[in-house]
């Protein structure tokens, strides 16, 4: 039996609509497809001169970032603004909130300001989950990255990128390369690829950066690039943090690049029409060569622009789920 780490109830309404977005695990193919379809519709809207829709008008979105981020926070902010929401950005240093009580206190203070949605990034796995459990009903929580656990909007924008370039998921070989151990992006991607029906998910990594029993998530593990990349349709490289060289996980940047860096030479083993992705920010010459990052196979910049559409989709869906849930509760109250 496959281990199930999270039950989906917390993030879904009784009718199965999204009301928080905490993790991809446990969600249905239908729901993930709905996110992608909704995002697609926002992408076509971007071609228009007026880029705003009133879906979140009058709502207050708080970007609650306990961990530094530029790109993710900016795209969330832009997404919220295009949905006509009011946006507050809070960057809270982790040192001030190393105690859980303070996180809860912060949360209660923000609730008191009648916010409607928290976009949360936190260094602890499970932080968004914890906030969703503790928060007042009717506030939607969107996970913008928690520890090593999940980064579901990144995974969904990656899925959108794959779908827009490859059409569907049914016959794909997808290889994820690099530091899987510390990567919340990889975990969410694996869940999403599996749910959307990708038959061949590979990870390519040295055993020091391979999470225990990752095979149970439905992936095949390769230690060598040439074998792992052979015949791949999609190659996803992950950012390698510099501190990994210091904790006896890797010998050197040089060796990592020579063994796992995505160069044009190695990319030749993938399919001729393979696409290359990276969640950013890129370490050129470490996990990916500049020629590849800027080359014809790369869709890295598309990922960034799709990120806004996916975040718009998730935010509008979760807000709509919260509204339906609240109405349902009101109906029950009045009828009894």
């Amino acid at each position, binding site marked *: 039996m496959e*281990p*199930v*780490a*999270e*039950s989906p109830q*917390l993030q879904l309404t009784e009718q199965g609509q999204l009301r928080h977005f905490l993790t991809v*695990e446990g969600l249905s193919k239908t729901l993930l497809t709905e996110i992608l379809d909704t995002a697609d519709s926002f992408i076509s809207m971007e071609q228009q001169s007026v880029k705003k829709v009133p879906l979140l008008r009058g709502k207050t979105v708080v970007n609650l970032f306990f961990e530094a981020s530029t790109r993710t926070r900016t795209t969330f902010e832009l997404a919220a603004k295009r949905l006509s929401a009011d946006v507050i950005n809070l960057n809270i240093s982790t040192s001030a909130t*190393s*105690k*859980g*009580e303070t*996180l*809860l206190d912060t949360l209660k203070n923000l609730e008191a300001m009648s916010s409607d949605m928290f976009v949360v990034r*936190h260094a*602890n*796995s*499970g*932080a968004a*989950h*914890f906030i969703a459990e*503790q928060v007042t009903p009717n506030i939607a929580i969107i996970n913008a990255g*928690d*520890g*090593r*656990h*999940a980064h579901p909007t990144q995974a969904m924008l990656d899925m959108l990128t794959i779908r827009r370039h490859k059409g569907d998921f049914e016959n794909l070989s997808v290889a994820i390369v690099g530091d899987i151990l510390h990567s*919340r992006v990889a*975990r969410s991607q694996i869940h999403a690829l599996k749910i959307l029906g990708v038959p061949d998910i590979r990870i390519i990594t040295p055993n020091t950066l391979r*999470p*225990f*029993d*990752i095979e*149970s*998530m439905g992936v095949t593990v390769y230690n060598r690039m040439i074998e792992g990349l052979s015949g791949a349709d999609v190659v996803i490289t992950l950012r390698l943090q510099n501190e990994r060289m210091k904790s006896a996980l890797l010998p050197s940047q040089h060796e990592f690049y020579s063994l796992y860096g995505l160069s044009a030479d190695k990319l030749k083993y993938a399919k001729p029409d393979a696409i290359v992705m990276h969640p950013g920010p890129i370490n050129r010459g470490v996990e990916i060569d500049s020629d590849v990052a800027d080359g014809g196979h790369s869709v890295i910049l598309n990922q960034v622009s799709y990120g806004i559409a996916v975040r718009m989709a998730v935010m509008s869906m979760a807000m709509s789920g919260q509204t339906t849930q609240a109405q349902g509760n009101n109906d029950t109250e009045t009828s009894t």
Partner: protein
Amino acid sequence: MSLWIRGGRLIDPANNIDTITDLFVNDGKVAAIGPCNDESAPSIDAQGLIVCPGLVDLSVSLPEPGKHQKGSISSETRAAAAGGITSICCLPDTSPVIDSASVATLVQDLARQGGFCNVWPIGALTQGLTGSQLSEMGTLKEAGCIGMSNLRAPFENTRVLLRCLEYASSYDVTVFFNPVEHSLADDGCVHEGPYATRLGLKGVPESAETVALTRDLLLIEQTGVRAHFGQLSCARSVDLIAAAQAKGLPVTADVCIHHLLGTEADIQNFNSLNHIQPPLRTEKDRQALRNGVQEGIISAICSHHQPHETAAKMAPFAATEPGISALDTLLPQALKLVANNLLTLSQLIERLTTGPARAANLKTGSLGVGDIADICIFDANEGWQVSANTLHSRGHNTPLMGCDLTGRVKHTLLAGRPVHPPRY
């Protein structure tokens, strides 16, 4: 003060007794076993109930001194009495730690004032539990400490550990080990397994326990010190202990009830109430621990009671404090092992009384004539619900909150004196 306990099923594994009989308590001791010969004497009607030695718990964290937000010695010993436990060995993880005679004495004085339960302190093996300098073990022993432990705190180096064991062996001090190799545990908070991988939580590999355990056993053999290993969590640890015992080393071991009933799957949905150290491990580990208890390699089951205030668990998983409040629920939880046919009732009681008493060298855990009348009388079939109202511990941090349990303590006697239910 004298008292008859009438008509109960007396189970006293130390004396190989399992029979329905009366028992006479006089002057704090068991004075007679057999039919009551004085109808007018005060008595407890124990018909349909089990009468056994009061339980002995080898691992309890007390919140005093220094952790008043988590409860008091009075509240927690009261919880012990309600759970049928008459002796607890308390850990040196107080603030300040039990590394001086004054703290050891204070803990015992506070326990005596409460009067609910015997409290036997385990002293710190190193000063301040910092792992660098020997504690005053001779003085601590004089002050009532029944053994010394460094808990899960690291030693500065293996030489310090060796010196601790050499010194302890000079004064016949039992050393309590909680084996953990910190460089391998590496601040992990859950078992390194598929659940840790999915939840993105840092894992503690099994080797963090077994590497330290192997080292400890080699040093025990070298020094001849008497050793007890607490809260084993993995299958291979049971094998290592069995091999050491077969070799004749003076080594005993316990397991906490959580590891006999739970597995890593219990951390699903980031349930921090199941955040404990050592972490809950695999089904295979649970099975091996159960076998170890059956075979007697593991001679004691403990509660590993760690009461916490609500806020201690109100944070993302890794930031919560590990531990479960478990004194109130130890017996009904342990009875699940009997219900699942893993142990006989007599075996279970042995592992909760004589087994731990022998490991800690305590003069309790048996009900022969002349023994101290520490007695637990319980209904093995009565159900009750765990709730804020039914728990006596100040710590409400239990994953069992709201659950129905079977098995309820009806009376607890401490040296013949009723301590539960309370006489107001």
